[in-house]
């Protein structure tokens, strides 16, 4: 398709089309994570015996991951600030750091999961563990998807193309960080 | 309406449910005929004619808007009436548990019903319980509680003559009640998809008089030696 259609350029609602689409994406993600966490909380309150399994989650690793994601959120918003000033290469550099934090988050999670699985806490070990792996798993999948797309946006930003997209991937990244902000107490602290 | 389909009312609350269905039929029937009548009349009255062209009506004109807002309000009243009647019937059938003269246990499994009758001593889960498969022997005129459970998948204990349906959820024990008011042999169905044999999961309901039932209990109660191991 040659060039973007005129439809994309119109902003009747005062919000750029891309941002509007990302906000609608966030609405659909709220409902997906919301449904999953609502089911988890219902079962958690219904099954007090799950606290025994929950005791085996490692708060230190969860805390480290929370710090990693918070810092990556900072770098994402700084990249957006740089893009706002039209400074593509700086935005690209900061996006690269964000992706680095994302990879770090995944490595920490990989280490965390392997230790837990080696201790016998597999997905079928108990009711808690199945929700633990599904919730953290879907979240990690969103991290991976976000990091990949951020890679593309970074490459374009380096050549000062489509700088508007830096803000959009930043919005998505903040949302993924928000989900983790709620996942952390639910999975690690509620013992 | 049910006599036409020769479906007798077999339980104490069957009449209430039929009454509710009749009331809803009347209310919705009246609204349907009014609306359909208006619909066809407008089609006939305003069909395209040679000289006449359509009018410009924005729908805000008060005397025309009344034709929509008035039915709107009346339907709200009818809805409230239906809700009150429905909740009333629902409370008598599903929420309120009258005093039970006897309690039976109904266990649904993939493709058969097992009924546990308390037996001569009237107590459930005692060695003298009578366990029957696909044939439920009950006495007309006394109030029964049923403890419904399933051992594998979802089933639904459905007795059309009682107008009763209740899903058997594996992992739960659901208590309900009915009071037979007729005698004879009727059908029990499984009304929830439960796999390949869902179609053969019918059972028979035999409602007996007091004496016949007593005779059945004596003749079918297992000998004192607990042939059926109570769990």
């Amino acid at each position: 398709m040659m060039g973007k259609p005129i439809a994309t350029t119109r902003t009747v609602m005062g919000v750029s089309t891309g941002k509007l689409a990302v906000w609608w994406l966030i609405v659909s993600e709220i409902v997906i994570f919301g449904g999953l966490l609502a089911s988890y909380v219902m079962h958690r309150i219904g099954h007090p015996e799950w606290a025994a399994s929950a005791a085996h989650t490692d708060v230190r690793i969860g805390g480290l991951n929370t710090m990693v994601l918070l810092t990556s959120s900072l770098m994402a918003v700084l990249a957006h600030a740089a893009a706002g000033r039209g400074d593509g290469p700086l935005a690209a550099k900061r996006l690269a750091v964000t992706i680095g934090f994302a990879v770090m988050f995944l490595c920490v999670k990989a280490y965390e999961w392997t230790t837990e699985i080696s201790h016998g806490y597999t997905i079928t070990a108990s009711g808690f563990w199945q929700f633990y792996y599904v919730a953290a798993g879907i979240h990690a999948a969103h991290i991976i998807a976000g990091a990949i797309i951020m890679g593309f946006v970074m490459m374009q930003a380096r050549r000062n193309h489509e700088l508007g997209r830096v803000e959009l991937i930043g919005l998505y990244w903040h949302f993924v960080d928000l989900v983790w902000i709620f996942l952390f107490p639910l999975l690690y602290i509620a013992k | 309406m049910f006599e036409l389909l020769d479906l007798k009312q077999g339980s104490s609350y069957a009449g209430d449910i039929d009454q509710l269905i009749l009331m809803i039929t009347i209310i919705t029937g009246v609204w349907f005929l009014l609306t359909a009548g208006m619909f066809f009349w407008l089609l006939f009255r305003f069909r395209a004619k040679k000289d006449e062209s359509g009018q410009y009506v924005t729908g805000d004109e008060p005397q025309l808007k009344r034709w929509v807002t008035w039915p709107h309000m009346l339907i709200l009243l009818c809805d409230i009436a239906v809700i009150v009647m429905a909740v009333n019937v629902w409370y008598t059938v599903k929420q309120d548990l009258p005093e039970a003269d006897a309690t039976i246990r109904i266990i649904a499994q993939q493709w058969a019903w097992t009924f546990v009758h308390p037996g001569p001593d009237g107590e459930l889960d005692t060695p003298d319980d009578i366990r029957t498969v696909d044939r439920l022997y009950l006495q007309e005129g006394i109030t029964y509680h049923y403890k419904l459970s399933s051992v594998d998948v979802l089933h639904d204990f459905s007795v059309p003559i009682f107008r009763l349906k209740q899903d058997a959820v594996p992992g739960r024990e659901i208590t309900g009640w009915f009071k037979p008011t007729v005698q004879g042999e009727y059908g029990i169905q499984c009304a929830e998809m439960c796999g390949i044999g869902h179609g053969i999961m019918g059972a028979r309901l035999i409602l007996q008089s007091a004496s016949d039932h007593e005779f059945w209990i004596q003749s079918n109660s297992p000998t004192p030696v607990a042939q059926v191991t109570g769990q």
Partner: protein
Amino acid sequence: MASADAATHDDHGHGNGKVPGALRGFLKDDHEWFYFQTWMILTGLFIISYIGPFIGEALHMFAITMVTAFGIAVVKAGLVIKRFMHLMDEPKFIWQMNATALVFILLFFFWVAPDVMSHEGANWGNQAGASITMTTHIEDFDPDVVWTERCATCHGEEGRGDGPAGTAIYPRPTDFTSRAYWATADHDIMATAILDGGVALGRSRYMPAFRTAFAAGHGGGHEGEVDTLPGERTEQLIARIMTFRPPPEAAPAPAPVAVPTREPTPTPTPEPVIDDTVALDGYGLIPGGEVVPAPAPAPTGPSEAELAARAQYIQGRVFN
């Protein structure tokens, strides 16, 4: 505190007057310093929420853990939404649609919780939720109880294939008291029939599969090895069925089929499902053996009148 900075946030000030010396190279203007401050607040809140549970346990006040964990999570979320996502600077329908999605989820939670969260309610009790195992999944698996509850419905109390639920099925359930059956019975065929149902053998589809039922109440397999519990339980049930075996006749009956005591095949790969329409006669095709004519149904069992009544409306149609 957050609102105080909102003013500076909009001016996109390009001077970096307020940026402290150390970070000058990193933060390019006040605007970015504002983001960095937000990050520092978030880190502080995180540390509080991290320490909270330890204080809570020390003082045995569970409320502290809850407040620090979830209360701070909400505050952190608010900060990220307001300052990083600039939600409040967008037209107001953006945050309204997100709030609507959240309201729908809360609605879902509060209207489903009475069924899933609590284990008692009007007229129902959730045994599984309170992890009471049901009759047939009791730990001490009792073949007699299982036979009475699950098998006798179709196979009959004495195993003659005359159970009340069995009369509705054609071909008839297996009669374990007939010698013809035992002459050609094969242990593996019986185990597969019990575990994976009649369909897996191409026989009558109305023999359900019990692998799931026998594995139930047993919280998942251990590491790596296949869940052997259904196999062991099937062996006990087969031993129970063997009791129906008729005593050998006066003439020296062939040596009883030795029950091979070997490890049950972990996951018997069922042969391809034979087209259902084939099994019209009694036992269908026993692999390798010739077709054995169906034994005459045992005399006892449902009375003639009932059989006639059933036959009347089955009207001889063949269905299975």
